[in-house]
């Protein structure tokens, strides 16, 4: 067994165990921390696949940004030692049945399918290549999705501010209208 395989088994075991803990943990803050472990081991898998840039993005944006956002909102909305009441066995049993049958179906399909790889030589992915193709209008350029995603990010930022902003209390408004 090579080092690669050992690392892969380690990362995938971490991902599976911690993602199951994320969806079953009774304490919400612990669930968020387990999600952090899942995201970090996913970044490890990206490193194994030789996508260093995306692994760095995963670490900074997901593990650094989204998890912190989620933990902040947990602290704002629930007590730190709040426990969920456990679900009825019926609900968890039938959800588990549906999920397991779906997983078995997909895994059988994956194992059945013959994937055919291209024979072309692998490309060296460096930062310069990613930046150039992100802003190029040539054949392998991605400038249109890049622009669309930048507008989406701007819209999401404004929307988040507008939604979460504390509006003026209703009573005050009606009082000023009367005056």
């Amino acid at each position: 067994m090579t080092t690669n395989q050992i690392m892969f088994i380690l990362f995938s075991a971490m991902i599976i165990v911690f993602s199951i803990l994320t969806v079953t943990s009774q304490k919400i803050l612990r669930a968020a921390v387990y999600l952090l472990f899942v995201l970090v081991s996913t970044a490890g898998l990206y490193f194994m696949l030789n996508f260093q840039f995306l692994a760095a993005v995963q670490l900074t944006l997901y593990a650094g940004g989204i998890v912190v956002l989620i933990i902040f909102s947990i602290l704002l909305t629930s007590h730190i030692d709040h426990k969920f009441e456990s679900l009825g066995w019926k609900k968890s049993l039938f959800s588990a049945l549906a999920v397991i049958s779906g997983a078995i179906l997909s895994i059988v399909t994956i194992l059945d399918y013959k994937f055919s790889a291209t024979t072309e030589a692998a490309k060296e992915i460096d930062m310069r290549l990613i930046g150039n193709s992100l802003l190029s209008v040539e054949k392998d350029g991605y400038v249109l999705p890049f622009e669309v995603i930048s507008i989406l990010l701007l819209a999401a930022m404004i929307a988040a501010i507008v939604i979460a902003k504390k509006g003026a209390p209703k009573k005050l408004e009606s009082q000023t209208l009367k005056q």
Partner: protein
Amino acid sequence: MNAGIPLNYFLILATIMFFVGVYGFLTRRNLITILMSVELILNSVNINFLAFNRYLFPHKLEGLFFSLFVIAVAASEAAVAIAIIINIYRRFTTINVEDVNVMKF
């Protein structure tokens, strides 16, 4: 770099992660934990894209850019969702999906 690991292993791992996320989506009753399940689902899709990119089309960059855009969409989705959740908490003082059943009052 990825010698000795077949493509199928990555796909099976992503499948398991995806369906664990679906399980959380079905059983959880708290809005934030539902959001966390959605993040799990999006992550498993990213693993799929990158594995396909590396194993089947190593001369292209499509998988990388698709997962980059998925990450950007997930980030903006999380920001807007958490703003909505905080607003809901302000009105209902709970974020349990079963208690939030009025759109306007």
